[in-house]
């Protein structure tokens, strides 16, 4: 069972609908007690970094999520959910995120980027073949004003907007982050979610065997 975290930050309905469409069973997680029996987690979200952190803390999910990730079970952060995996954001300086990955989110500069937020379909340059992103070049749907500067150690794919290259997908072991919205990116996006579900199934099978 895949848990989808509800911390008051927006569009979790679309993520749940997409996973259900792929015949995947989901449970909405609103507190630590919901995590029992969960094999993988998805952290969706739109909105501000601070309200994301506060939303997780007020539901007593902040530390349980860090523990869940440390246990090595599959985890996917989408949009704000990816940004929350990092240490902090210039949106709310001094407030620590889940800090699974090093680095800080920066705001697109309107003078250089033009229109902010970065909204629409943009392409990802996938760095290496991976369980989630198999293609070299694909288009996905983005809506965000903050970005993660490239860190080669966790970079899975990069995207460029207004001259700024940033990380559109990150990965280390069983933790993935996607800046675009796979649940809103048509067939290509659904494929990524299906790949995640397959990773989850493979992981729980191997855990059951051992």
């Amino acid at each position: 069972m895949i848990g989808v975290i509800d911390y008051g930050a927006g569009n979790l309905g679309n993520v749940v609908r997409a996973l259900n469409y792929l015949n995947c069973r989901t449970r909405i997680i609103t507190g630590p007690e919901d995590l029992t029996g969960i094999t993988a987690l998805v952290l969706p979200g739109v909105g501000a970094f601070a309200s994301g952190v506060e939303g997780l803390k007020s539901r007593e999910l902040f530390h349980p999520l860090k523990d869940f990730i440390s246990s090595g079970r599959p985890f996917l952060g989408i949009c704000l959910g990816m940004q929350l995996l990092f240490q902090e954001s210039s949106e709310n300086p001094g407030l620590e995120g889940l800090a699974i990955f090093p680095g800080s989110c920066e705001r697109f500069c309107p003078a250089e980027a033009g229109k902010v937020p970065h909204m629409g379909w943009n392409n990802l340059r996938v760095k290496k073949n991976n369980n989630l992103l198999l293609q070299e070049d694909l288009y996905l749907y983005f809506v965000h004003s903050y970005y993660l500067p490239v860190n080669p150690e966790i970079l899975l794919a990069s995207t460029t907007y207004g001259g700024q290259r940033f990380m559109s997908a990150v990965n280390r072991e069983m933790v993935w982050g996607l800046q675009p919205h796979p649940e809103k990116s048509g067939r290509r996006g659904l494929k990524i979610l299906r790949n995640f579900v397959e990773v989850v199934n493979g992981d729980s099978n191997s855990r059951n065997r051992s």
Partner: protein
Amino acid sequence: MLTKRLIPCLDVKDGRVVKGQQFINLKDHGDPVEMARAYNQAGADELVFLDITATREKREIMREMVLQVAACLFIPFTVGGGITSIEDFRSLIAAGADKISINSAAVCTPGLISRAAAKFGSQAVVVAIDGRRRGSGSWEVLISGGTEETGLELVDWAREAQDRGAGELLLTSMDRDGSRDGYDLEMLKAVNQAVSIPVIASGGAGSPEHLYQAFTEGEADAALAASIWHQDSYSIKEGKEYLAERGIPVRPVDEELLEEDNDGRK
């Protein structure tokens, strides 16, 4: 590179599509779910559903339609027509709409823009503006489907809508709407230079060249069209190929999708 978006607009009455492209393989051209799927396969980047009934008692039908569409369409879609309250926003977003478009209600109650943006995020708030030229470099905002004058200067209103928290503007030229003579490029450019949020061009598209002009001279971020696709003059794929050949970045139409007739579940 961020691509320019092509957005078909579907008119919906009593939960049925009343104007839309006549796709060959569809059993029921009035079914919003079938139409949404067909446009998705044809390469649309987003969809707009415009409720032309928009009476109180029909609201529930629209919500039902949004629920059905969201359960099987996984590209962004906007719902507009007759939205007047935060409760309308809440109900349609919970049903699965990504963005809500407001027009007359935004003019009559500008505070609705900021309240909706604070509650659902700017990305969910599209302010639709209908403009009519009143002289060189000046356009008046019309409401109630273009029947009522407001005295508002269009560029000023566009700027105010942005300042109040709109995430996107849907700009329709009432002079060009339905004409197929091309978008009002001067109007588009004037608004695009006044705001820093995305602007969707609407009203007047009749050929791929008009789309090209909207993105170049008009500086638009997206182009909405109804009759150019509805009457099957050009496919979205032809439009995108025309644009790509001329250096406009577009999301390529997924060939794999075009060849399939299933729903993508494998």
